[in-house]
Each structure stands twice: as C-alpha cells, then as structure tokens.
C-alpha cells in the first residue's frame, strides 16, 4: 500500500504562491479519488523566508509530511530553494521540475554572500529526470507573468497519475474567474513540456 503513495514537495520563497499551487494539486488528487494530505509551515515563512509544502496522495495516507529521502517529485519555484530541498528526494530516482528563477536572500542582497553558481548543473549531475522551466517567460506568453506557477503545475501534471479533467476542475475551483483562461492556457503550455 505504501508503495502507491506519491510524495510531492513544492518549495520556494514566501510570497511566491506556493500554498495555492499545492492546494490545486491536492484538490486535483482528491477529485481523482485519492486520499490526500498536505502540510507546510506558515507563520514566519510569510516574510520572505523559505517555504516547503508537502503533498502526499494514494490509497491511504498517514503522515502529512514526506519523510526525508522518500520524495518522488520536487517542484521548485526558485533555484536555491530547489537545491536546498534535494535531500528530501529519493536519491537519483526522484524527479525535479524547477523554475529558472533566482531570488537573492538577505545576506546576498547585502553583499555578504554570493548567490551560488552552477545550481542547474548540480541538479543535473544528481537527478537524471530534471526539467528546467522558464516559468516567467511562458506565463507571459500565456498572458500573465503571475501564472508562472500554473505553467509549472502543468509540467508536473504529466508526471502524475491524475487525469487532466481533474486538474482543470481544480483550477476552476481555486483560481479567480477572471484569471481562469490565462491559467488554463499556462497549464496546457506546461503540460506539453
């Protein structure tokens, strides 16, 4: 039974819309008939700190947090946060879908440390299944740069056993009506990747 559980991590920086993305994913999994649990820490993370959201679905889910080393998919909204959370993945066999975006933390902004170089190469050497997405550009093409998360959701959706109709239903429920068309387009674009 345990083997049937999918462990997904959504990571990035507070304010990037990670909670909404993980809610859409959870909703789609529930509509597809799975048991779902989701966990993350609010509070201090709202002020621009690191955010890690855990989503698990399957026939029956107990722990709401993904045990270290058991993640199937890491869904990174920011590169340094993506690399920071790699230890949560199954070594070598986990999938990484990362947004090609760098957001400097305070120590880098102040010039005390530098933003690490070569992060995408680092991920590539560790994980064969690695997709780098220019979410900002694709979302702009879809009609709104703020739909970048939805492009990434689309890219992740191809790697999960949740039919497209449930994703679209989840988007309809969770995304405001005026932004729905753009988000559906962004999702489709991500889904082709």
């Amino acid at each position, binding site marked *: 039974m345990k083997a049937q559980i999918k462990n997904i991590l959504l990571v990035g920086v507070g304010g990037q819309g990670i909670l909404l993305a993980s809610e859409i994913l959870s909703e789609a999994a529930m509509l597809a008939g799975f048991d779902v649990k989701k966990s993350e820490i609010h509070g201090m993370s709202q002020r621009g700190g690191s955010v890690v959201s855990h989503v698990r679905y399957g026939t029956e*889910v107990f722990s709401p947090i993904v045990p270290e080393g058991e993640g199937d998919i890491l869904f990174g909204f920011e590169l340094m946060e993506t690399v920071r959370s790699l230890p949560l993945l199954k070594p070598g066999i986990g999938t990484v879908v990362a947004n090609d975006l760098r957001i400097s933390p305070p120590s880098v902004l102040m010039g005390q440390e530098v933003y690490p170089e070569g992060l995408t190469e680092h991920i590539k050497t560790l994980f064969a299944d690695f997709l780098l997405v220019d979410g900002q550009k694709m979302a702009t093409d879809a009609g709104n740069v703020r739909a970048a998360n939805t492009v990434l959701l689309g890219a992740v959706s191809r790697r999960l056993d949740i039919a497209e109709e449930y994703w679209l239903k989840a988007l309809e429920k969770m995304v405001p009506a005026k932004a729905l068309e753009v988000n559906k387009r962004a999702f489709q674009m991500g889904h082709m990747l």
Partner: protein
Amino acid sequence: MKEILSGNEAIARGAYEAGCLVACAYPGTPSTEILENTLKYNEINSSWAPNEKVALEVAIGASFGGGRALCTMKHVGVNVAADPLFTLSYTGVRGGLVLVAADDPEMHSSQNEQDSRNYARFAKVPMLEPSDSRECKEFTRLAFELSEQYDTPFMLRSSTRISHGKSIVELGERVTDLPLPKLEKNPAKLVMLPGNARVRHPLVEQNLVNLSKAAATMPLNRLEIRDRSIGIITAGICYQYVREVLPDASTLKLGMVHPLPHDLIREFAAQVDTLYVIEELDPFIEDQVKAMGLTAIGKEIISLCGELTPGRLRSAFGLPQPATIPVEQMPGRPPNMCPGCPHRGVFYALNQLKAYVTGDIGCYTLAFMPPLSAMDTCVCMGASIGMATGVTKVVSDEEKKKIVAVIGDSTFLHTGMNGLMDMVYNNSPATVIILDNSITAMTGRQDNPASGFTLMDDPAHAINIPLLCKALGVKNIRVINPLDLEETKRVISEEMERPEPSVVITNKPCVLIKREDVFQKGPVYAVDTDKCTGCRACLKIGCPAIEWLPAGDGSKKGKARIDPLLCTGCDVCRQLCTFDAIGSKQ
C-alpha cells in the same frame, strides 16, 4: 460532500455544525485561521478580543447565557487565559464551551514549546486531541456535546502540523434543535465565592472520574490490535507517524488525552509484549501510565524537545533511514521585514543610538537580526515595558538613558498597557516606542481595537493610542513619522535623555494592509549609478528591495540597485545616501 480542509478550517466547520453561536480569539500562530473561518458562517458571531483572557471571558459569558461558544488561541495564549480557565472548570457551562489550544512543537513561530496538555490536567478540564482534519471537525462537534453532557468546558489540543495540515473531510449539517439562549440565574453554580466553590470542586473531581470510565468505551479512544510484540499508546499527529513508520504495531489511539481511560490502557497493556508511549514534548501520557504501575518505554527514545517526524521515529526504533543526498551549504533565507515596512527606520535609529532595547512579539522582533541588530530582549506578549522598568531599577543613571521598550499597537493593547501603567505609577525613566501600524501584522493582518474595524469587517471605534497613554498619566507623548529618519532619531534621542516616563508613537500603517486609503505606495526609487560610490550605507537598513551588485572584478567594489517591483517608495534609503544617488523615478 467532501472537501480538503486544514485542521483550522475543520475546527471552524465542526463548531458550525455543532450549532456554535459565538467564536472569540486573539490571533496567534498556528491558531489564527480558525476564527478567519468561523467568520464564513453567518450563524456564528466571530470577534477578535484584545487578548486571550478577554476572549475566554467572552466565550464564558456566551456559554452562561445559554449559547455554544468557541474560544481559540495559541499555546502561550493559554497562559494569559489561565485565570478564568481554572475557575471555569468549577462553574462548568450552560451552552457548551470549547477552548482550542494550538501548540507549536519545534517552535516554527513561537517563543517556547510548552505542552498544553498539562493545562488540561492542571485546570481539571477534559481535553480531546485530533490526529487529522477529519477528527478536527468530528472532535470539535463532539466536544460541544460532551461539554454540555458533563457540565464542563472542553479543551481541544491542536499543533502546527494538525492546524496547518490539510486532509479530506466529509461535511455535515448544522444541528438545529438546540434550545434558544435565555437568561437563567444560578448563583450557586456561577458565583465562585469560597462557599460555592467548595461545593463545586468535588463535583469537578467526580466528573473527571466519570469521564475516565466512560472514555473506555468512547469511539474516539480506539484499540487497534495488529502484531502484539509492540504496543504503542499515542495520540494526535504522532499516531500518523506511528502508522507510517510502524504499520504492523498494535496501537491504542487516544482521542481524549485528559482524563485518560485507565481501564482501556490496562486492557491494551495486557495484550502486548512491550508497551511504548509515543508523544511529542512532555511525557504527559507516559508519566500517568507509569503511575498506574505499568512498564512502558517513552522519553527514553523520543526527545522532550521539538516535533516528531517519521525520520525521528525511525531513529527512535533503530530502523534504517532511507538514503539521502547530502545537504548543500548555501546562504540561508530567514524571514525579513517587508520593503517599505515603517518599523525599519525606527530600528536603524535605535541601532545608531546604541539603545538597550527591551522587545516584544510581532514582525518587529525580526529587527534583532543584522543589519538592524536592535533588539536585546524578547520574552512574551506585552513584556517589553515591564522589562524596561525593571532594567532601570538596577543599572547606573548613565545606562538608564539607554533603556527603550519597543512594542506594536496590537501587543500594547493586549497586555502592554498594564506595563505602561506601572511605568507611570512607579516613575520609570525608560522610553517606550509604540510602533502603531494599525494592524496585527505578524499573524497575517488581523484587525484590533485600534484599527477601526472588527473581524466581521464592521466599522468600529479606533482607540486613540496617544490619548490612551495620556489617560494612563504619561506626560511626554510624541507622535513621529517613522519614515523620516532625522525626526525619528532626534525625537527618540531626546526622550531617552528625559529622566521620566515618555512614549514615542509612530504613525505609519503596515504596507500589507489591503484596505484602500490606508497604505499607499509612493513612486518607485532607483539608484543613479553615476553617483553611487558603493559606500553601502543604504544596505544598513536591510531592505529586501535593495541589492548589492558586485563590480565582478573580484574586488570589494560594487553598486547598489533597487528592485522596482519590490520598492514601495518609502524614501528611507534616499535619506541614508550622502551622495544623492537615490531618487524617485518620477
């Protein structure tokens, strides 16, 4: 209908289904969203109180009036509400009363990780502990029923992982057959004078004995016999980790953690070879199990500190851990005050003035971090002012001038104003800065008695903080614009010199307030790279909108850049630049 709900949403839903009429709270992570969700049900009157003690007293009044009432708070809030709680157990209730205490093991957003279960035992109040959102809803509903059935308030203990975790919940209907609230006098039960209280106390003790017996057959306490070599008594989120890591072990899953079902515990212990108690924080269940004369393993293998995780539970049982790739050493990403935050200039000034800052609880506590580094103490809500008075009682006259208490508007109204009363009464020479940003910001922008609105978004009287300070007897009250660095530093410095109580109040709103006409973004600023000498003065306020761009030649040279998407035009960095390199783009 099925929905994915957070524990907090499910508690609100449970209260709604139970026919709850009143919900009252002071915001506190991880409990805040419960009231933000009871708000969605028109049948419930939801309100923010100035502090947890008042919140519980409002709920008690609603209960005494005959209505079902919910009161929620974070774990440390129970300390504030403890006074009414300990006597509420004696009076019992009329309408059911449920108090939610949301604990924060691991201190994700708290100053300590006290275990609220001890309060249940200490205050003699029964406590339920759900293990997922489904149980959050069901247990809340049940707690209201049991509260009336046993004539006692019920506590519901949550934790960060339960409150902020989401799982699937089957929604039910609201009960409609409850009696309408109506006044009914019963002083022997509700007036806790010694003569009455002496009569009530034995009833409370008997009630707990009755509940302990009844709990043996309540479905919320559940025997799950699997492999009998290991038997685990557990509750709450720990149950989920036990099922995840030790799927074959037998479990006694407790839904009621106070009083414990002694008969059921003995029955379970008799059926298993080795008995374990798996719980976060204190050995609350374990100590009682051992006091029953049973042998059990608990805190020998599970830490007293922090939260449990599947990995930590695996280690405790000596099970192999999954392989992981090593952790990369990279720059950390701590939370920071927002771009344009009106607190930033105040702490810059306090740093420059080398003040000894007694701090308080709010976003501004983040000012203890570099580069502002301007907070020296932080203990609990409202403590800054009392601490400032206390420090001045022991240090030299010269050092007394350095003492500054810093507190937000919501925290001041919570329990800070009592400290100010004492400061005036006992003539402390310290200076108090009230950072009035018109909102309770840290927990996510909740209204408070000085913000002009209620939780239900009705216009409300906004307390005039300068007048309140005047009424408390403060003679020296200065209101400043914290975005004007010269004024901020000058006024704080003058008041620090003054050998009597003084209060400085800042008057700029939080940048996150969404109401129109409150916070307004100014023109975006930019750095003139011809004029920027790379002196780094603007970096000293730690604004997330200002970035250092190294020259790229390996030297320490570089220039500042302002991110136009993040800048709010607060103007503080411009005032720091002595080379006139920062200005608005318009």
